């Protein structure tokens, strides 16, 4: 009997199907559920109204991140400093109350492990290869960097998972994005994923789960793979995946929630078996040459609006599609850019190094490397470094990275989402530019009227030094 050849995605999917219905809808088991304060209050409220319980509080982990201020949260006496915004405070308070009421572990703002859910999950070993992982947040795809099937869900689905530990889903199509070759100097995982967004377009992956393969992906650390998978949604895919390998196992081993003893060996054997079978086919394959990827920036208001740092702002007429021409015109107007302008001459007033895309230790090391012994330019008014978690912060401090940032004139903050979406007080002023390591350059994302240029951590650091978008390779020693 010959067995059907399957992709990594199909193997994880099949292992989690509880029931398959005639119309193709499947009841899918969810192994891990991360909960934050913004998309969960109404889900808990609905459970309460219906008198329902959380089926598996032990598979659920609550972490506040979006609304938390990144300035000091305790005063000198260790007392919590009240949060000024009443609605932010109410959301945070609701998460604490709901976690207690429903018996869910909360990693609260006073805990050393607190951080952005997508940084905390992998860091705690809560997110595992081969697991199905959900969170009420579209960047949940991030955990796919470990080889987990992870995707964002809406509030009704959060409620469904809390109550039943399952979701009703239809299987997506599969796509392989293969990046072959060696990345050049100064080119990071962020540049790779920005390049992919540019190649595929913001909707290119719609309806697909993407597996990132190829030697350039294999050679990345887990931090880099998380960065790539994080932005799967920015090229339309609900989830991204990188097959678990020795790099993955080494990363997961020994983390607080990681399997131990005999379970560990069982886990590794299973994880190894998940790799896409040789000869299995994907519904679509895209091949990218790593040597073609340069340090990349965005010029517009969609993550697909990418260009190599040596390039110029494109003319709207250069796009084939009429609706894209119109969108580009609007983007350039919003961004205050003119066609033909060199990206490397665009001045920036703000620098944001953080977000679930780029706030892990490797990101901070890359930024510090560029900033060591240098100082931010005079025209850069606001520059903050926001570690992804309390543990990343502690590690960075142990390595002295915070001193590099502070000496360079950047602010060293407490962990959280921060200026990625400006739900807390960290916002970019209207009309000003920000070189940002986050994942969305949408209109108003970093604050009303804010102009975002997405870049890698090293590129953000380079922009801080020169006060304009800069090719980091010029500063490399």
């Amino acid at each position, binding site marked *: 009997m010959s067995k059907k050849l399957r992709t990594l995605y199909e193997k994880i999917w099949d292992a989690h199907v509880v*029931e398959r219905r005639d119309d193709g809808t499947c009841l899918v088991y969810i192994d*891990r559920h991360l909960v934050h304060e913004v998309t969960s209050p*109404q889900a808990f409220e609905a459970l309460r109204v*219906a008198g329902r319980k959380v089926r598996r509080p032990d598979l659920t982990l609550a972490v506040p991140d979006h609304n938390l201020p990144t300035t000091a949260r305790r005063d000198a006496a260790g007392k919590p400093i009240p949060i000024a915004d009443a609605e932010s405070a109410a959301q945070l308070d609701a998460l604490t109350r709901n976690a207690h009421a429903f018996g869910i572990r909360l990693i609260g703002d006073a805990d050393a492990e607190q951080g952005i859910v997508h940084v905390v999950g992998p860091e705690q070993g809560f997110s595992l290869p081969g697991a199905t992982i959900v969170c009420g947040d579209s960047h949940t795809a991030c955990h796919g960097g470990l080889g987990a099937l992870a995707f964002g869900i*809406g509030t009704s689905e959060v409620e469904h998972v809390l109550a039943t530990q399952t979701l009703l889903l239809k299987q997506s199509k599969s796509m392989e994005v293969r990046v072959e070759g060696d990345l050049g100097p100064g080119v990071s995982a962020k540049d790779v994923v920005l390049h992919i967004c540019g190649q595929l377009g913001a909707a290119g992956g719609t309806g697909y789960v993407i597996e990132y393969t190829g030697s350039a992906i294999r050679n990345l650390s887990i931090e880099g793979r998380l960065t790539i998978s994080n932005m799967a949604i920015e090229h339309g895919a609900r989830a991204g995946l990188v097959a678990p390998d020795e790099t993955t196992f080494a990363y997961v081993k020994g983390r607080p929630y990681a*399997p131990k003893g005999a379970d560990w060996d*069982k*886990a590794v054997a299973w994880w190894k078996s998940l790799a896409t079978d040789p000869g299995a086919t994907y519904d679509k394959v895209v091949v990218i040459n790593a040597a073609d990827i340069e340090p990349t920036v965005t010029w517009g208001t969609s993550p697909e609006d990418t260009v190599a740092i040596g390039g110029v702002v494109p003319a709207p007429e250069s796009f084939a599609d009429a609706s894209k021409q119109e969108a580009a015109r609007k983007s350039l107007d919003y961004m205050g850019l003119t066609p033909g302008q060199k990206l490397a001459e665009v001045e920036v007033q703000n620098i944001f190094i953080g977000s679930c895309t780029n706030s892990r230790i490797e990101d901070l090391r890359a930024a510090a490397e560029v900033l060591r012994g240098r100082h931010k330019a005079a025209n850069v008014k606001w520059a903050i470094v926001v570690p992804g978690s309390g543990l990343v912060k502690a590690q960075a401090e142990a390595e002295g990275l915070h001193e590099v940032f502070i000496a360079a004139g950047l602010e060293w903050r407490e962990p959280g989402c921060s200026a990625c979406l400006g739900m807390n007080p960290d916002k970019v002023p209207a009309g000003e530019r920000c070189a940002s390591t986050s994942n969305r350059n949408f209109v108003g994302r970093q604050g009303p009227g804010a102009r975002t240029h997405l870049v890698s951590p090293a590129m953000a650091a380079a922009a801080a030094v020169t006060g304009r978008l800069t090719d980091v390779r010029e500063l490399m020693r």
Partner: protein
Amino acid sequence: MTPIKHVAGRAIPFGRKNVDTDVIIPSHYLKTITREGLGKGAFETIRREPGNIFDTPEYAGAPILIAGDNFGCGSSREHAAWALLDMGLTCVIAPSFSDIFSGNAFKNGILTVVLPQEAVDRLIEVAQTDPIDIDLETQTVTTPFQDRFTFEIDPFRKACLLDGLDEVGLTLAQGDIISAHEAGLRAQLPFLASANA
């Protein structure tokens, strides 16, 4: 959820095309922690227009909204459905809906009815003066003037709406197959079956 068999009453003849969820409920209302109370922010920008349809007294408390093509496009915020419910709406009729919005509407017990543009135009005309009647059982929309339009609906969604069944309730009724799956996980993949720090 409240079962929907029949919706009858005044219908707000809105008719505008491409109304996105930011128009239905602006983003500054997203920091709430309840589903209730969003009605006050619904269609805020439109309500600033003098003489707008939403504040016309004869449509106060109308259970039906007639919209244009692509209703509910844009961000996936479920607040859009909560805002409509909070306004007292239980049915929206339009030539087309965004997929995410119609999913969210369904999950919250709002019936979305897709009809051809000509039928929608006729209903907008009727709604100026008279009530409209929607019968989910027979999948028809009728008016006091002998108009009769039939619509399609996914049989699963129809059954859920008719019986007031929510997806969570339905899945909970399948607790035994979920338990069986968990038992299988404990035996085969114990490291996934539980999470212990």
